[in-house]
């Protein structure tokens, strides 16, 4: 037996209360706090978020930082390489590229965010109604979705764009008409899963009203899926806009969007490659940031990713 430094005094019973026993040694975080903590530890996501905020600021303020406008032409200064006067150079009409690039970024982001918001509203309502009502309503709504899923999205958007005059709002509309389907399916699946989960059944048995069940259980538990999916809809809307403008059925000159700029840059790729490279770099940066941030959020907030 060890003796020496251990005094007999220590051999008296130590008193402790019951609460202390049930004390959990690590702090208890809500799912949201926990997710946020995980996200803030993910360096890639934090960098992406900061970069995106910077890009948004540039898109809003950039065009005003120069004396030129995005539409003002100057036939004495066409195709100028980037310089102190024209930071990103000028295009074939002598328009300032700096102003055009950031104005275009603004338009592209606007289209993407509004389209994603519309997708969110329509998709969440459709999915929620379908799942909460169930039965025949659900069956009919699902048959409709199954038909829509069979339609190749982009082809459909192209057809719609042919029908309508190309403008920011028709672009948004065309994208939203078919874009909500994915969100609707995700939300429906999530709610159906929750509906059968024990804590919801328990709440029901305890007499919680439907409204409270939706408010306290359904919404907090589906919000993660919705936010994460939106994080992936925004870049895909940016892509669709750029794609349509690139093949020539999106926005038209002198309006600017990243797609329009890439398209006109591509026309002169062999002589003035900076006209292609700068808007291409901006769109790539936006897409990469959204992609990394989206992945980070999925890892951080999706409970199924936890181990």
């Amino acid at each position: 037996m060890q003796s020496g430094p251990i005094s007999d005094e220590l051999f008296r019973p130590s008193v402790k209360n019951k609460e202390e026993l049930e004390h959990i040694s690590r702090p208890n975080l809500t799912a949201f706090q926990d997710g946020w903590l995980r996200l803030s530890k993910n360096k890639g996501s934090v960098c992406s978020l900061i970069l995106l905020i910077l890009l948004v600021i540039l898109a809003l303020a950039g065009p005003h930082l120069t004396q030129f406008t995005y539409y003002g032409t100057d036939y004495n200064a066409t195709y100028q390489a980037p310089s102190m006067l024209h930071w990103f150079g000028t295009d074939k009409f002598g328009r300032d590229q700096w102003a055009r690039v950031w104005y275009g970024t603004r338009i592209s982001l606007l289209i993407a965010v509004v389209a994603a918001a519309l997708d969110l509203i329509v998709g969440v309502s459709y999915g929620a109604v379908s799942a909460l009502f169930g039965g025949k309503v659900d069956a009919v709504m699902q048959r409709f979705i199954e038909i829509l899923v069979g339609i190749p999205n982009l082809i459909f958007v192209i057809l719609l764009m042919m029908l309508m005059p190309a403008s920011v709002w028709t672009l948004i509309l065309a994208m939203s008409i078919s874009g909500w389907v994915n969100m609707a399916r995700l939300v429906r699946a999530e709610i159906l899963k929750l509906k059968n989960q024990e804590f919801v059944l328990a709440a029901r048995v305890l007499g919680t009203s439907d409204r409270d069940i939706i408010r306290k259980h359904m919404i907090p538990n589906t919000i993660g899926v919705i936010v994460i999916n939106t994080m992936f809809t925004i870049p895909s809307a940016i892509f669709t806009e750029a794609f349509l403008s690139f093949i020539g059925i999106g926005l038209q000159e002198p309006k600017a969007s990243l797609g329009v700029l890439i398209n006109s840059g591509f026309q002169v790729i062999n002589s003035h490659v900076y006209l292609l490279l700068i808007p291409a770099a901006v769109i790539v940066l936006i897409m990469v940031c959204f992609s990394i941030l989206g992945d980070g959020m999925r890892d951080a907030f999706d409970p199924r990713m936890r181990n």
Partner: protein
Amino acid sequence: MNRYILKRLVYLAVTLLVITTLTFFLMHSLPGTPFDEDKISRLSAAQQQQIYASYGLDKPLYIQFFRYLTNMFKGDFGTSTLYLGMPVSRIVLNRILPSALIGFQAVLFGVVIGLVLGIIAAYRHNTSMDYMTMIISVLGISIPNFVVAALLQYFLGFKLGWFPVAYWESYANSILPSLALSFGVIAQIARFIRTEMLSVLQQDYILMAQSKGLSPAKILVKHALRNSILPVVTILGSIVVNLLTGSLAVESIYSVPGIGSLFVDTIKANDYSTILGLTVFYSAFYVVVILIIDILYCLIDPRIRLASAKE
């Protein structure tokens, strides 16, 4: 299983009918005619009438629609107005080969490289190889394919002169477009395999295989690989969609005489009947591919069949 396929075939038919109907009426509600306004206005009313009649444009819309549908079942999709007098079905058939070649090469290249990258990344988790694969896959998923195509054309074609820049003269012409298209496939496959494999490597049956005293190579090939590769079937659909849309831009950029560039050209030229025919063609291709993938999915892994039956 048979009932399932039958159900899916019914959906397929309904979807195609919906798409055809929608496209038909969308096309015909467009303002203007598919003909060059300047040229046609110079013709006399009788001549105009004759041209409209030869394309069946003088009849009421619903009659045009039913005629279109019945002709469609006979394989007749009308005649093009951009390529005057050419039957749409023939134009499409003429254009399939380049698209098919590019698509096939892109898939082949993308799947092989993607698989290798994904497997190495998972097996050497958290090493520089892994980070490199992650970077490649994020870039591949994020960079729009038309940007990739334009950059490849500029750097590999124009600056370095390794490959022909455009047109369709020899096999070498197919390399750059295939590479441009495969970039996204590489990214999707590598990323998917990496995630799958990482989760498989944590499964108990891998531990069990280790406890049997098997070599790491055997465990990788016989236990980890098979279980991580099978679910790739689930993303084949989205890969095909990306290839389809990608081909529109990539073929236009490289002036490949394929289906994708045809679609873009006819859209710019308001060539109704060809657009209509191509939309039906694309949709049919798409739904059939999705159906095949779903069936493959059931055949490949019996567990999935059980799981979906339970739902």
